[in-house]
């Protein structure tokens, strides 16, 4: 994985010193809250319902064991013993003291981590496929591209005050595991007819109050021109994005209002100007690509493990293996997902002890790598098959072996009104009640892939628009109310869910989800037809009849 060079470390250390001084000036009264707020947000420090919240960046969701152990240390020393992994592959701490913020960032910097650009109207953490470097279906490791974009976007002087926040995702497989088309810019690394690597560029996707699936703006941009093309995409947005209206300020509104063809024309014009300038654009030389790519070279897999298979004697292990373990491109190895969705638990939360354990397991069994998924789970990407049973035993002992990847209880939920000052309703208790209702594992497995996603407000941090079943919490005259949506997808078949009808109270939404699921069981062509495919085949009406009677 990528290691900081002198410039990376110097930039982060300088920012830590600067922010430590800004915190001291706020505590002394030299800075007012109005003066301090934009400064703390640039460093990921929010003021939420109960305390300050610190969002720490996890670039493209990749962590080393040492970094995971540091996250555990922060949870233990400065928070209340746990952290929350988010839908943007980051981690949030909910109980941070302002007086500790500078020290926390200094400790994170010792393991090449920071909270820079995890808030504010700038280019945020670059997200990617959690199976990068391990997936059999990828054409390249997307993290090389994501890391180059991270370097380009960090402290980019022209793009530090965009009209609104800006999120980029990079994948390199046809199966989209990163909700790529629901980002401001989504990139898919592909090969052209000549066999050259480049990117298909989607611009103007997003969720929030105006959800949109990003249109394809360019089929192919070569690796030698990608950064210049991204610069052009951002320049057009920075110039014409709606700074007068926060609700219309995201790039998706600009692309929609101009139309993809006109936006593309303007980007191409800007791109041509940049390429015509001395130097031919901003793309780095091949040597810099090679330098970054070397950090993501495959680990030293053992060819002699190729024929290994795990011992399948334990029936519980077999269930976990079939549900949470994916094929690896290297024979003899596997990708193991650690569910952070135990029945009745809080989606995405992990205790300091669990984080320490996962750090140990990553170091021992996965070439020192952990991944964070946008579905709020963790992944050990390179596990020898011969070690899978030992891994499962260790996870099971720590409450981390829930066998529910992509099943009905593998629910995405934002922090909601339990933690978030923007929320209108609680998300977590709804996720807990649904998971409890469907706790029976045989029932879950019979239902198959079924992605439920819950947001506590229209900002859609819980990706409710992209849920096969989506739930949106709203405030109805001071009382929590939940709207139900069907038919969304964040995958390669991206689509936006549609609202079924009138909303429900907390108990009612759980019943409504169960009626929806039972309708699916009756309507599906056979047990292999997914919920989403049944919905797309039969439409909303039979589900509405089942939900509302």
């Amino acid at each position, binding site marked *: 994985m990528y290691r900081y060079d002198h410039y990376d470390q110097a930039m982060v250390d300088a920012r830590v010193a600067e922010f430590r001084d800004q915190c001291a000036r706020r505590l002394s009264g030299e800075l007012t*809250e109005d003066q301090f707020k934009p400064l703390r947000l640039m460093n990921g420090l929010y003021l939420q319902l109960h305390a300050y919240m610190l969002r720490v960046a996890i670039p493209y969701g990749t962590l080393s064991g040492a970094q995971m152990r540091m996250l555990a240390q922060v949870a233990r020393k400065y928070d209340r013993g746990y952290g929350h992994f988010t839908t943007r592959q980051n981690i949030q701490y909910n109980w941070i003291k302002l007086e500790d913020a500078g020290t926390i960032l200094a400790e994170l910097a010792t393991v090449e981590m920071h909270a820079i650009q995890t808030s504010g109207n700038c280019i945020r953490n670059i997200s990617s496929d959690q199976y990068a470097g391990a997936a059999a279906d990828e054409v390249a490791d997307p993290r090389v591209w994501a890391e180059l974009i991270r370097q380009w976007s960090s402290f980019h002087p022209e793009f530090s005050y965009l009209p609104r926040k800006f999120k980029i995702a990079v994948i390199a497989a046809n199966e989209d595991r990163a909700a790529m088309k629901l980002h401001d810019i989504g990139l898919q690394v592909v090969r052209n007819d000549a066999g050259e690597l480049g990117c298909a560029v989607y611009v103007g996707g997003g969720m929030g109050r105006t959800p949109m699936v990003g249109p394809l703006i360019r089929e192919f941009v070569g690796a030698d021109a990608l950064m210049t093309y991204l610069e052009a995409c951002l320049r057009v947005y920075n110039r014409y994005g709606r700074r007068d209206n926060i609700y219309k300020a995201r790039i998706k509104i600009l692309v929609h209002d101009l139309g993809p063809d006109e936006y593309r024309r303007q980007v191409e014009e800007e791109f041509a100007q940049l390429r015509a300038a001395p130097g031919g654009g901003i793309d780095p030389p091949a040597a810099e690509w090679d330098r970054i790519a070397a950090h993501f070279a495959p680990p030293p897999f053992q060819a002699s493990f190729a024929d290994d298979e795990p011992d399948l004697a334990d029936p519980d292990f077999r269930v976990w293996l079939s549900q949470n373990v994916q094929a690896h491109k290297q024979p003899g190895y596997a990708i193991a997902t650690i569910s952070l969705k135990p029945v009745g638990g809080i989606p995405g939360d992990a205790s300091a002890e669990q984080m320490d354990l996962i750090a140990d397991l990553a170091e021992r069994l996965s070439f020192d790598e952990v991944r964070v998924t946008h579905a709020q789970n963790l992944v050990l990407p390179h596990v020898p098959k011969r070690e899978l049973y030992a891994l499962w035993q260790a996870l099971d002992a720590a409450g981390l072996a829930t066998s529910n990847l992509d099943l009905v209880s593998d629910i995405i939920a934002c922090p909601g009104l339990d933690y978030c000052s923007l929320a209108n309703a609680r998300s977590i208790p709804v996720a807990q009640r649904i998971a409890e209702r469907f706790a029976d594992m045989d029932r879950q497995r019979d239902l198959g892939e079924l992605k439920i996603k819950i947001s506590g407000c229209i900002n859609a941090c819980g990706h409710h628009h992209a849920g096969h079943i989506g739930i949106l919490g709203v405030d109805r005259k*001071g009382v929590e109310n939940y709207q139900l949506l069907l038919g969304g997808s964040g995958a390669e078949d991206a689509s936006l869910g549609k609202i079924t009808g009138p909303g429900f109270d907390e108990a009612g939404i759980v019943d409504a989800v169960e009626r929806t699921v039972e309708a699916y069981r009756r309507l599906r062509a056979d047990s292999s037809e997914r919920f989403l495919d049944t919905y797309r085949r039969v439409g909303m009406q039979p589900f509405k009849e089942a939900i509302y009677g």
Partner: protein
Amino acid sequence: MKLLTGNDLASGAVVWWTGSDWSVHLEEAADVGEHAEEIMAVEEAARRVNTPYAVDAQATPNGPRPSHIKDRIRALGPTVRPDLSLPKADRAAGSWVI
């Protein structure tokens, strides 16, 4: 009744105006009547509280209760972590929040 609440500048903890100071305990909150603005101005200037605001509340035999669910959750802590609530680990303490 009206209560005054905010977050402690240094710790970020939710605090309530008692009439003379700030407390993390809602039960100690005082009715500020029409004086919220002047108290906020003084307290913010003294850096004793961050982003204070006034909320509607009802008086009950067990103490004041904010009208809006968001402020009731702020008063007690996350409903999904009763072990982090005030008073600590008292599951019954949250019965009035929702």
